[in-house]
């Protein structure tokens, strides 16, 4: 990858942060909590995006951010009041800017059609602004740099340049010799040092400039080129440029360039300008950070995974040696284990990211959904700082978008209905994230009418998803929402419909090793709860053996482990068996059979049982030969070298170096859950993909 490309990548990465800062700042402005520095930071975000976009020639992005910046500048300098209407325009512009950055990232440099309306809205803002101080609002875009065309063979000309620096010229870091040298680049020069300004030695002030130069330059360059050399020192010197021809006509150098106004010639003791107080509240100081390529982090994570496997191999060998538990080597290896865990946690933390950018995007989704549905919605968020693996954050974006749209569209009532129910006509959607026992729990709550269960059941029956006579528990009815085919064309609104149902959300969540549940209270609202692992790299699992194979069952869905009593096992039909546990009859699933590892039913009374809850809240008892222990395992994807395997979500390497498959218990259980047995509730065969980075 060329470094130009890596800088381009850097631009997009930085833009993402700048957009986050922008949206954050606009949120504060909207809430009336913004101070000057917030507004400044908002301005700077757009300004920096413009600067970078210019470097890569993303002209659509440059044009839009320029106009955007102009409005923000007016707000910043208090020429424009940040009224609610203006702030809304700014927020929408920020959304559009996000789109433009995304387009540029994809290499699409066309200016999208909507640009005009966004630009018009921004201009509308400015119409109310007073004229900026000291400058006329310039037309947008970069001021065109004059392009000098060299046409034909130009004749040479002799310029006579009289140049006498003021003190400011020196203090601004200029060196007259350099200027003379730059002139020499244009042609032949003859330089005469003029010392008329120098007085008696006794009066000599080394700080006061007294030297001047007379330079004769013979060049084919036009006068503009010659003047360009003095561009930076304009006003910092006496300068007279004339051509020989002029000279002949007018021997006295005429003041083509007036000496700079006296104000500008004053010594460098000009008062400090616009230096902001430097002391900032300590909490605003950004933490020192280091930018690292993701690949490097992943290599580190892999290596640490190996380290942990290596540790458990050593520990296992030691155990086989049956040493005294207080033997030195045993203690050292235990220390090794703890250290390896520390390293692993630290390394995982590198990949951890706050969910904040994700939540921020949702405010845009809500705004769009408001427009599409005509509902009024307030979005509240909490726990934005909650950190979770980068991949989880990334892959959660689509499902969360869908959920939020769904909540606005189907969860909340229309304002009239809310008023009639004695509620605030503005609905509230609450997004929250929290760490809970090794998982991150994200909830999307609306204060709408709650799920209409009879209606859901009716829809499911009409679509043939549920047998007409099948009685379902409330939780089973709620779970129907996640069934493929539940959401179909006749209820496609222009918002959450689009032919995608919540089943897609559910699949995305299970792919991440998480689960989604619903809680609803009629009249008060509905809550979707997504629990996800903090990382996709390790998992807490229970190690079991089945038909001579060692397998891992993720701990998250396990309720308890049981050694079944003979009297609790009941034959059910020709081939099924039920286990009586917790006062309920639970289907008994032979894992070996489910995985096709051995033929025929084994005796459940000789097995051990893992009781687990499926995503549909059904209980299932998994029959295994033996339960060993519970441990954290490093997840290894199967699909990168092979493909996905039904009933298996991934693999891991155990202490003895052997590969153990990690089960996807939901898939195993589905084939036997009571609803599935009805033959109608069978979940599609599309298997969730195993996780990988």
């Amino acid at each position, binding site marked *: 990858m060329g470094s130009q490309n890596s800088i381009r990548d850097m631009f997009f990465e930085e833009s993402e942060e700048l957009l986050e800062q922008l949206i954050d700042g606009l949120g504060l402005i909207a809430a009336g909590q913004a101070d000057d520095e917030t507004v400044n930071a908002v301005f700077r975000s757009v300004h920096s995006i413009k600067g970078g976009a210019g470097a890569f020639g993303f002209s659509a992005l440059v044009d839009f951010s320029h106009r955007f910046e102009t409005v923000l500048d007016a707000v910043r300098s208090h020429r424009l009041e940040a009224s609610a209407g203006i702030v809304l325009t700014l927020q929408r512009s920020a959304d559009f800017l996000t789109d433009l950055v995304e387009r540029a990232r994809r290499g699409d440099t066309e200016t999208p059609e909507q640009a005009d309306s966004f630009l018009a809205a921004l201009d509308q803002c400015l119409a109310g602004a007073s004229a900026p101080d000291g400058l006329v609002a310039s037309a947008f875009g970069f001021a065109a740099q004059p392009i000098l065309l060299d046409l034909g063979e130009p004749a040479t000309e002799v310029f006579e340049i009289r140049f006498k620096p003021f003190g400011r010229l020196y203090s601004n870091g200029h060196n007259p010799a350099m200027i003379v040298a730059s002139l020499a680049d244009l042609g032949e020069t003859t330089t005469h040092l003029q010392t008329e300004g120098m007085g008696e030695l006794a009066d000599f002030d080394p700080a006061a400039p007294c030297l001047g130069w007379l330079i004769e330059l013979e060049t084919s360059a036009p006068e503009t080129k010659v003047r360009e050399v003095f561009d930076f020192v304009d006003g910092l010197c006496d300068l007279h440029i004339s051509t020989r021809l002029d000279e002949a006509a007018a021997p006295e150098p005429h003041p083509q360039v007036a000496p700079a106004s006296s104000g500008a010639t004053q010594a460098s003791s000009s008062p400090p300008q616009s230096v902001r107080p430097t002391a900032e509240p300590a909490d605003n100081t950004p933490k020192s950070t280091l930018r690292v390529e993701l690949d490097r982090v992943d290599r580190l994570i*892999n290596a640490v*995974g*190996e380290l942990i*496997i290596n540790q458990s191999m050593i520990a296992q060998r030691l155990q086989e040696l049956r040493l005294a538990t207080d033997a030195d080597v045993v203690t050292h290896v235990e220390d090794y284990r703890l250290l390896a865990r520390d390293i692993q946690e630290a390394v995982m933390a590198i990949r951890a990211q706050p969910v904040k950018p994700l939540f921020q995007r949702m405010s845009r989704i809500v705004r769009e959904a408001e427009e599409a549905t005509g509902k009024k919605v307030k979005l509240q968020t909490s726990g934005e700082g909650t950190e979770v693996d980068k991949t989880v954050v990334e892959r959660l974006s689509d499902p969360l978008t869908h959920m939020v749209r769904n909540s606005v569209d189907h969860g909340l009532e229309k304002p009239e209905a809310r008023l009639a129910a004695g509620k605030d006509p503005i609905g509230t959607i609450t997004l929250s994230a929290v760490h809970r026992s090794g998982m991150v729990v994200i909830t999307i709550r609306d204060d709408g009418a709650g799920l209409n269960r009879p209606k859901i059941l009716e829809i499911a029956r009409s679509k043939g998803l549920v047998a007409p006579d099948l009685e379902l528990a409330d939780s089973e009815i709620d779970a129907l929402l996640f069934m493929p085919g539940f959401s179909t064309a006749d209820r496609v609104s222009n918002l959450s419909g689009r032919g995608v149902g919540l089943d897609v959300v559910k699949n995305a969540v299970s792919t991440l090793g998480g689960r989604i549940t619903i809680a609803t209270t009629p009249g008060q609202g509905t809550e979707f709860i997504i629990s996800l692992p903090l990382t996709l790299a390790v998992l807490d699992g229970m190690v079991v053996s089945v038909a001579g*194979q*060692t397998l891992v069952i993720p701990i998250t869905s396990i309720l308890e482990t049981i050694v079944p009593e003979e009297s609790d096992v009941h034959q059910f039909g020709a081939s099924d068996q039920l286990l009586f546990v917790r006062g309920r009859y639970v289907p008994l699933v032979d894992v070996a059979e*489910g*995985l*096709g*590892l051995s033929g025929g039913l084994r005796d459940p009374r000789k097995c051990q049982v893992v009781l687990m809850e499926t995503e549909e809240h059904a209980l299932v008892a998994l029959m295994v030969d033996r339960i060993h222990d519970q441990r954290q395992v490093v997840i*290894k*994807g*199967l699909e*990168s*070298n*092979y*493909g*996905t*395997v*039904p*009933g*298996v979500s991934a*693999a891991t*390497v155990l202490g003895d*170096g*052997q*590969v*153990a*498959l990690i089960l996807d218990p939901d898939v195993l259980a589905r084939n036997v859950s009571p609803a599935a047995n009805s033959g109608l509730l069978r979940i599609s065969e599309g298997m969730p993909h195993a996780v990988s980075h």
Partner: protein
Amino acid sequence: MQSAIDATRLDLEFVAFCTGGQNFSLDISQVREIRRWSPVSSLPHSPEEVLGVMNLRGSVIPIYDLAARFGLPRTPHNERNVVVVAAHGGKTLGLLVESVSEILSVKNEDIQTPPDTRGDSGRQAITGIITTDEGMSRVIDLGAVIGFGGKAPQ
């Protein structure tokens, strides 16, 4: 996708091995290493020729029984069996064979196109034939081997 035979190369090198009583060879550029056989963990719902998965320095790689892939009986268990670790299209995999015999240096024109034969499902996975001192060696198309007759596992 790498092709088993790169027509632009004049001198080609193949790793030759024997399994199920037949000789096979694989373009050396696809071979990563040769390992002693070690037990695998079997994969549920896998085709006959997929023996299972093995740990290769932290990566989980599938192991194919090459003989079974070509419709021959499964390779009988033997301590001397070896695994040829190969890479194809970003995937790493192992081929269980009975023994690795030699490295063959061949000229491109010495590789014959296999004739059309009837019915052998494994035939599509052979892209060429090399004549050797011991007889005939079949050049394997790795992509076809792991693709189950063209259909890649998803």
